[in-house]
């Protein structure tokens, strides 16, 4: 079948599944209270004066000033002058850049030491669980959020695992305190899908489909055909009229949810692109260790990719004879490349440094942890670069961004300082 025309789907109300039942009122009240001090903070006008401001989108200014009002970036200007009425953050011997964006994590879904009973990454009881939603499992108090905040990550996409063909809905978060609803970003959710080994082993091993890549594709097409039919009918429907699984798939077909498809091997990458083309799915590919083998095809598709956590093309099963500059080769072919941590090694700068070590251009490496992932998850209008009108999410560094010894010394989210490195650290 041909591509499905995208249309907004009138009845889609993600908030209906956001917080349900009796504790909704409680959560709302808690959120209101938690939000209050930050309202005060973000109402302030703040000027960050830096040795260098790297906007990512429009080059660097040395020295430079970022003016912040109401949690948004008002202006980025050269020099050190600050207008009256602004609280000044003196970073005049520091480098300022946008907060980092990690477009593929599982933070909060499993706690760091894998405590039994606290592993909520993958509802692997059946190959399709599109209606599973990370907001129902995510622990906002997982200490890992603090850890990665200190490493500069301000926007995180939290996704379900990859054991299912369709694993469920992931959501983008601002990495700040105050509870889940204060973290959640009001944007399109991201439907996590997976091809290749993971769903095959999670289900095939239990003597049920999919056991092969043929089975995986056939099952996905069958379900998405149904969803596409639903969307073509186009009538607004009430929740509950069709099954929730199909409803979520239809939302992806209708463009109300993005997709993020786990695809490691070159053939899985091509299958993912084919699925996206056929059903008009919008979104990104994840991992893509063999993406360099089909870089031109990916570039032609204009689908962005999120590479990692391994960046050198090595994965169990089919290692290349030597490390490959996966992200660099994709970038050179014209693919928009982001770098992920996958909650694996939590330091995006470390990941970017390793990509540079393998051959990625430094400027590209910085885009790959800021603006490119913001675009990949549909948030480029809010985060990923220092531009007027965007959220004032920025980080202050005590050295060059791509030096291994550099530390993040301050993190601002929407104008509010959410992390300051202690002097003793």
């Amino acid at each position, binding site marked *: 079948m041909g591509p499905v025309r995208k249309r907004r789907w009138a009845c889609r109300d993600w908030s209906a599944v956001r917080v349900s039942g009796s504790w909704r009122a409680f959560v709302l009240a808690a959120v209101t209270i938690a939000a209050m001090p930050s309202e005060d903070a973000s109402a302030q006008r703040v000027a960050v004066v830096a040795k260098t401001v790297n906007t990512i989108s429009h080059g660097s200014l040395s020295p430079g000033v970022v003016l912040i009002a109401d949690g948004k970036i008002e202006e980025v200007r050269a020099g050190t002058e600050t207008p009256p009425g602004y609280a000044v953050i003196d970073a005049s011997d520091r480098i300022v850049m946008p907060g980092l964006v990690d477009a593929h994590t599982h933070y909060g879904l499993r706690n760091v*030491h894998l405590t039994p009973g606290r592993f909520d990454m993958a509802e692997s009881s059946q190959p399709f669980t599109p209606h599973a939603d990370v907001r129902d499992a995510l622990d906002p108090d997982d200490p890992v959020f603090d850890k990665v905040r200190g490493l500069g990550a301000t926007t995180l996409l939290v996704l379900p695992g990859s054991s299912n063909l369709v694993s469920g809905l992931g959501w983008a978060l601002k990495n700040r305190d105050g509870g889940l609803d204060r973290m959640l970003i009001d944007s399109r959710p991201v439907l996590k899908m997976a091809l290749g080994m993971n769903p095959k082993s999670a289900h095939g091993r239990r003597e049920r489909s999919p056991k092969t890549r043929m089975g995986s594709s056939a099952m996905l097409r069958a379900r998405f055909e149904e969803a596409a039919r639903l969307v073509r009918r186009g009538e607004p429907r009430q929740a509950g009229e069709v099954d929730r699984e199909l409803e979520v798939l239809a939302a992806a077909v209708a463009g109300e949810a993005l997709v993020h498809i786990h695809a490691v091997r070159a053939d899985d990458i091509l299958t993912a692109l084919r699925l996206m083309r056929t059903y008009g799915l919008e979104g990104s590919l994840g991992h893509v260790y063999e993406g360099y083998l089909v870089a031109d095809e990916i570039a032609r598709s204009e689908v962005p990719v999120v590479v990692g956590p391994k960046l050198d093309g090595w994965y169990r099963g089919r290692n290349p*004879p*030597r*490390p490959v500059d996966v992200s660099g080769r994709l970038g050179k072919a014209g693919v928009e490349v982001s770098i992920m941590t996958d909650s694996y*090694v939590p330091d995006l700068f470390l990941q970017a440094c*390793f990509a540079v070590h393998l051959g990625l251009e430094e400027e590209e490496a910085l885009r790959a942890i800021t603006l490119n992932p913001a675009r990949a998850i549909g948030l480029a209008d809010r985060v990923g670069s220092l531009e007027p009108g965007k959220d004032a999410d920025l980080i202050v560094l005590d050295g060059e961004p*791509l030096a*291994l010894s550099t530390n993040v010394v301050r993190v601002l989210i929407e104008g509010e300082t959410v992390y300051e490195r202690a002097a003793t650290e």
Partner: protein
Amino acid sequence: MSVQRLSSWCIPVLAGMLWSGPSAGQELVPDQPAGWLVRAGTLWSDGDGFVAGGEVLLRDGTIAAVGPDLEAPDDVEVIDVTDGFILPGLIEAHSQTGLHGDGVGWDTDEDTRPITADLHARDAFYAFAADVASARRSGITTVLATPGGKNLIGGSGVLIKTAPAVGDENVVRQPAVLKMSLGDEPKRTNAAPRTRMGEVALLREHLSRARKYEEERNQAEQNGERPAVDADFETTAALLRGELPALVQAYTTKDIANALRLSDEFGFDVILAYATQAHLIAGELARRDVPVVLASIKGLWYRYEKESFSERNAAQLLDAGVRIALQLGEGNPYGGGDLLFNAGYLLKHGLAREDALRAITSWPAELLGVADRLGRLRPGMDGDVVVLSGPPFDPRSQVLHVFINGQRMPSE
């Protein structure tokens, strides 16, 4: 005596078993000139610091001379890297490098019984494996290759060079350590043990029997009899004689304490590996002089028992006076095995630049007892040298040349 005893039966067997031959596409060391003179902008070696205009002359497999302004003899080939850095060959003080096979199953853990003290990593180490080549390319010239951590005792570990060699010329020390593992992993592997009580009980039983075995052998020798050899206890008896240390993979303070208690009871030396909670008892480890091999980058996945993991543990242990070395470790996505890059990550977590270099050169050589041969650039030491295109720990720097035993490794 015992190492000899061990070698007498195991080396010939091993040499025969190892040869499966390099196949097409695999690298062999090409023919070499009589020596190499390597010149670079800077040389670093523990004790000497950063030396401008550093030069190294390699001859007969060893370092013949070090210093600025060396004369180039006629028969040596000169390599000149103007802005380059010369380092001693890197040493990874604990790994399963070379035991992973090449796509046909892993050879890391014989996890059919909890104690396999009769095994030797040497028998599985495959010098032509991709991970060995990868380690070599990233500047690692020597690895301590040990069995994995599934068994309480996995077997002996071998200290071995990473050159693509067929015979035993790469072996620095065999057996180098007895690999032990405590805590969660052995509990989950075999039918027994199922608890930490079971772990210590089984180890104690084995160590007691090894002690008895040693006594009986000594008795037999005194009586002029030919003692019976039991492979199950040979390496452990050598451990009890103090000829090699136990390398104990343990994470929590509980498991570290169990290892120390057993070492007190039976009198053997311990080197800890992983030891993600070691910094919590740094003072005690310093007092006992128990060294720790740390994974600098610890993946957040795939491992229980890392509640207290902190990238600052290396700096904290050093501050307390504990000897450390670094390894790559599991859960590390840098599959290419780049130890230098991994060590560099600790710079932002409190480790000084020179200490980060020591932790992958001279310190592992010292704690594995081979500081007379490896880990520094000194005349008479093994010709293991790495040449970088730029400063160590700069992500843009690449490994340009690797020399092992004075031979330049295939350019890759």
